[in-house]
């Protein structure tokens, strides 16, 4: 069986999002073959489909630095994209996959992508739910969109990415932009160029990913371009997406999403937490721990932050217990309950103010 591969080069975010819409719709209408697309971006901040720009991004910074703000058609969180990352996308029909289960589809595609990256000489693995990592550091983030029997799944691949640029476009506590915090954020991601000791040729990277998908799905890729109906759909989608209406489709007030903070002294040391808290749904959208605490393995705090992302406040105790059960962590006197205590303190301070 033959699938198509397209490389659409470096484009503005609006053009890339319009191509997402057009190619997914065309696949759904059976006007297109199943397709692998490689893409790159001029600097942009991309919101997840259901996110609000005000709540997620530092819009002032984006405007001052010529960073386009756009909305993806896929789910997940806000990201920064520029020429130092490679995007890969699959447009498929459910027939190609033999299952309707979204988490099974995610795993199959991500494991194949990880094999493609690994073939370049690194050890990339899928880390559920949606990341590909090398030695515990993220090298690719992914997400999907579906429509009827068609789906699109897309991922990033960090080639020479500077995570500081991403931190600056996001709405996060100012302390996260301190040198030490940036250094720590850098430790959580890894670039392909750093792993290989040199910037790999883009053609080589693309060929490796293409080959891995070809092997996984038992297909052969034929290079191609947009057909006439895709081009027409692209122009229509661009007219809708390259507008403030599309970017502002979801508008939620910043006041619903305060950045809260608490610091508390425990037997195991001083623990500080900052919380992006969603008031209407009473959920912890994102957490950042710092403090004078000793934890082994070192990534425990980062993993706990990820585990509690977008979780309901009312389930905090059980979520923290679930995280630590079966995970050996050396915490030198700090207990799982201490984390719950300091998070609740941060939220309680906000409730008192209200």
């Amino acid at each position, binding site marked *: 069986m033959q699938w198509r591969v397209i490389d659409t080069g470096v484009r503005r975010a609006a053009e890339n999002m319009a191509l997402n819409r057009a190619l997914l719709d065309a696949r759904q209408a059976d006007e297109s073959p199943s397709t692998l697309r490689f893409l790159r971006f001029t600097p942009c901040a991309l919101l*997840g*489909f*259901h996110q609000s720009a005000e709540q997620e991004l530092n819009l002032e910074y984006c405007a001052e630095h010529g960073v386009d703000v756009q909305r*993806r*058609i*896929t*789910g*997940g969180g806000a990201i920064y994209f520029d020429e130092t990352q490679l995007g890969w996308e699959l447009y498929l029909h459910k027939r190609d996959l033999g*299952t*309707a*289960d*979204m*988490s099974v589809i*995610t795993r199959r595609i991500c494991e194949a992508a990880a094999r493609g990256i690994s073939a370049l000489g690194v050890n990339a693995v899928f880390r559920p*739910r*949606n990341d590909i990592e090398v030695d515990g550091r993220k090298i690719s983030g*992914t*997400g*999907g*969109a*579906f*429509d*009827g029997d068609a789906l699109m799944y897309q991922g990033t691949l960090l080639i020479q990415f500077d995570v500081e640029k991403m931190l600056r476009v996001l709405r996060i506590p100012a302390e996260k932009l301190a040198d030490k915090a940036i250094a720590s954020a850098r430790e959580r991601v890894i670039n392909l160029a750093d792993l290989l000791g040199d910037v790999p040729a883009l053609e080589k990277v693309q060929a490796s990913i293409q080959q891995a998908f070809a092997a996984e799905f038992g297909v052969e890729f034929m290079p191609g371009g947009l057909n006439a109906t895709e081009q027409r759909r692209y122009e229509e989608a661009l007219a809708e997406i390259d507008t403030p209406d599309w970017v502002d489709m*979801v508008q939620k007030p910043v006041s619903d999403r305060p950045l809260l903070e608490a610091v508390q002294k425990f037997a195991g040391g001083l623990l500080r937490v900052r919380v992006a808290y969603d008031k*209407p*749904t009473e959920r912890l959208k994102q957490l950042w721990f710092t403090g004078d605490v000793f934890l082994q393995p070192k990534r425990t705090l980062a993993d706990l932050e990820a585990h509690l992302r*977008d979780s309901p406040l009312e389930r905090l105790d059980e979520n923290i217990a679930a995280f630590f059960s079966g995970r050996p962590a050396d915490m030198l006197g700090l207990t799982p309950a201490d984390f719950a205590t300091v998070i609740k303190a941060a939220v309680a301070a906000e409730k008192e103010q209200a």
Partner: protein
Amino acid sequence: MDCNGCEFRPELYYDDQYQIWARREEDGSLTVGMTDISQTIAGKILHVRVRKPGTLRPAGKPVATIESGKWAGPVPNVFDCVIEAANHDVLEDPNLLNIEPYEAWIARVKPAGNLEEALALLVTGETARAGYCERTRREDIHCERGAR
């Protein structure tokens, strides 16, 4: 008839892929939600967005969108309609769609044309049951409900 543990309600109307259900209301509107099949395939639903009341939605354009596990997609629409209301309980707690898909309605809509013509595009009763069960078996879908 076993539908792989997927609940079916014969009094409701369905699209031919059994993605959505619709219930006929006395005032001529239709209440729309996701089937047990759809919520199972989606997994835990984190976001729901319904178009503003008064918005005209042509057939093929979604009434609502959902997001689960970084997948985003439409709650499809098979006839021209105007959105009348969204279920605010579901907007605030989308997980309700995983817990009680037939109670947690998503939107109330008014067909733009004739109600009977809109319903004629849907299937109901024992015909729907057969198709619904057939899809669960063909795609090997085993329904699971969410927990609080």
